[in-house]
């Protein structure tokens, strides 16, 4: 019976499709409408230059659902040829699983790569020393604050010198304006953001700035991790950070798109994209004259120092089992083009990795991003390792417990350590 239906369907399909074009098809997966819009011109260039048909596969947009689908298909061997990876912390695990094709040689031979900032190239290198991704854009993160709100209340807008200084500033904001003083993304519904847009800002300035040891284990029992959670706890206990919205679905909507533009939240971690996507011209609720009204601080260190956090923004990679491996690698190089970098930057507000963009008038038109791109050359970053996705989820769970006021800093650290041990095995944690 089933065979009969199958046969019938096949016959219908044959007759329907007898006249399709005969180019090779490259399947490309990426997430989010903005990402698709930004990629469309690149897809057209790939089609023209490589003589292939590019088919864009839209998976569910939230990073987690996208990854679920992508990993299921990678494991099954029927994944697209080329895909973007929303969370750079997943790359190391995907390499370990053998899903990504090595592209180090291709990148080295590609003339465009020499213009990339060093941070981008270093971030693209996996723990095994090989490169598997195209690091075409960077997320450059800092602390963004409402200059107008602070100045009006007579609060210093100077770069904070230490965590204590930053915390005092947040308390002063609360006392003088009533607004929330500082937001670090936290909790499980923010997904990878709790780690990449929150925890990371603090840990790089702590007494244990790297959580990956030389032998690839995770050093999570250190004092630095404890201090970071204590910082969260201080923010939450002093009511300096809006907690309730973070516990709901879409936790970023209320604080970032509503409270910050209204001045009810005076400072938050954010990436360069905030100038364009969250509060700039691509926003539904833009802040007028955003680059003057909203200023940036580098992340202060626990005691001293200034850090500009750099991470890969949704890097591209090639499916190791792609039927069109060589074509897909050529298309990957196309995603690293200056054109794609600028188009993506314009849509999403990430920072192009290539210094060559500075000479391009289209990039110079993105005035918000020009100084940040220059600063990217001094960015610092967190070392990656296999199992990073588990650490990211563990941080989300630990900060969720802090948000719900169910535990203290030591308890949060224990949640993180337990989760990582449970997921990766006891031996993964130092």
């Amino acid at each position, binding site marked *: 019976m089933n065979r009969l239906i199958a046969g019938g*369907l096949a016959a219908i399909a*044959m007759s329907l499709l007898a006249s399709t074009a005969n180019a090779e098809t490259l399947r490309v997966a990426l997430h989010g409408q903005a990402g698709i819009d930004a990629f469309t011109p690149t897809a057209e260039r790939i089609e023209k230059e490589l003589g292939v048909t590019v088919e864009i596969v839209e998976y569910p947009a939230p990073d987690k659902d996208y990854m679920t689908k992508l990993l299921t298909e990678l494991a099954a061997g*029927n994944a697209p040829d080329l895909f973007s990876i929303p969370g750079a912390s997943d790359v190391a695990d995907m390499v370990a699983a053998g899903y990504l094709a090595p592209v180090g040689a291709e990148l080295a031979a590609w003339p465009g790569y020499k213009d990339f900032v060093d941070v981008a190239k270093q971030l693209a290198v996996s723990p095994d020393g090989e490169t598997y991704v195209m690091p075409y854009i960077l997320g450059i993160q800092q602390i963004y604050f409402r200059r107008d709100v602070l100045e009006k209340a007579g609060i210093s807008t100077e770069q904070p010198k230490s965590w204590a200084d930053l915390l005092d500033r947040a308390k002063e904001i609360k006392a003088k304006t009533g607004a929330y003083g500082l937001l670090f993304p936290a909790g499980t519904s923010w997904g990878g953001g709790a780690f990449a847009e929150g925890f990371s800002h603090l840990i790089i300035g702590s007494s244990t700035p790297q959580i990956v040891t030389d032998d690839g284990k995770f050093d999570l029992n250190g004092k630095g991790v404890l201090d970071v959670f204590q910082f969260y706890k201080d923010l939450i206990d002093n009511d300096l950070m809006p907690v309730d919205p973070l516990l709901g679905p879409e936790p970023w909507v209320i604080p970032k798109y509503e409270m910050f533009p209204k001045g009810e939240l005076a400072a938050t971690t954010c990436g360069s994209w905030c100038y364009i996507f969250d509060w700039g011209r691509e926003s539904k609720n833009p802040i007028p004259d955003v680059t003057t009204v909203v200023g940036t601080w580098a992340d202060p260190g626990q005691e001293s120092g200034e850090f500009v956090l750099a991470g890969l923004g949704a890097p591209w990679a090639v499916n190791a089992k792609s039927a069109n491996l060589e074509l897909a690698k050529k298309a990957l190089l196309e995603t690293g083009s200056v054109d794609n970098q600028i188009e993506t930057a314009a849509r999403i507000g990430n920072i192009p990795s290539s210094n060559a963009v500075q000479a391009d008038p289209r990039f110079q038109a993105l005035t918000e991003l020009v100084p940040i791109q220059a600063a990217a050359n001094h960015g610092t970053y967190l070392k990656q390792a296999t199992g990073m996705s588990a650490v990211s989820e563990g941080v989300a769970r630990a900060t969720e417990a802090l948000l719900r006021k169910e535990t203290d800093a030591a308890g949060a650290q224990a949640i993180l350590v337990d989760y990582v041990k449970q997921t990766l095995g006891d031996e993964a944690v130092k």
Partner: protein
Amino acid sequence: MAGVNSPRQGAYTALAYVTLIIISIFCLLPFVWMALASVDSNAQLFLKWPDSWTFDNYIRVFATENGTRWFANSLFTVLSATILVVIISGLGGYALSRSKAWWKQPFLYGILLIRVLPSTALLVPLYKILLTANNGMGSLVRPLAGENYRAIMQMVGFIDGYLGLIIVLATGQLPLALWIMKVFFDGVPKDYEEAAILDGATLVQRIHRVLIPLALPGLAAAGLFAFMSAWGDFLLPLILLSSPELQTLPIGLFRAFLRVNEIDYGLLAAIATIYLIPAVIAFSFARRYLVQTFSGGVKG
């Protein structure tokens, strides 16, 4: 007879009205929000009277979103699965009703127990099996199809193909459908068949001439319940489909729900309403079979 109790009975009746009104509001309120939001030019998360009335949201589902495709895909896969279920359960239900073999009892217990398996528990192995089948089908189709390979696999593939989804959806509905049909045939007297046997009719003729006409109400019940349950299934298309051309309504809804940083509630409500309507129609037909089916013919 109720003379003495009249005032009291009146009070009870009033109480019954109040209770029913409260329960009905509880049951209907979410639908009211959805219906209003779908025709509101500025729909919000919460219940409100539309700013201005518009069918723009519905138009957008079909014009800017792939609504027609989603709807067609849902209808095609679910109807195909329903037809499969009706045929297979019709044959199987007859066999189960008439057989006296040893395997009858274990089989009936078995499918009763299948109904309790949580679907997430079977997902990973199911995916692997379908993948193997898909690769097999792929190697069959590849030499025949040439450059149309992928397009054909979207029809006959087991992963990311119509055929796989239809078969899995149908299998999920089989246990209940088999029960319904078994119980139904139990109620069909054997006299008719025996008369047909005496006329020298073969098994196929018996089924065709006598049983199908008799079984129509049972098949209708089995088909309606299979349709509703397959129509509402969300996990299988979520896991099995990825090509945009194959997307179904629940996935379109789920995706629109999660797509952008700020949700477009009017559009969502319109998709949800479109998705809801066939389910409500099927349910209104199925309602009369609810009692006998819910008990799964357990007392059969």
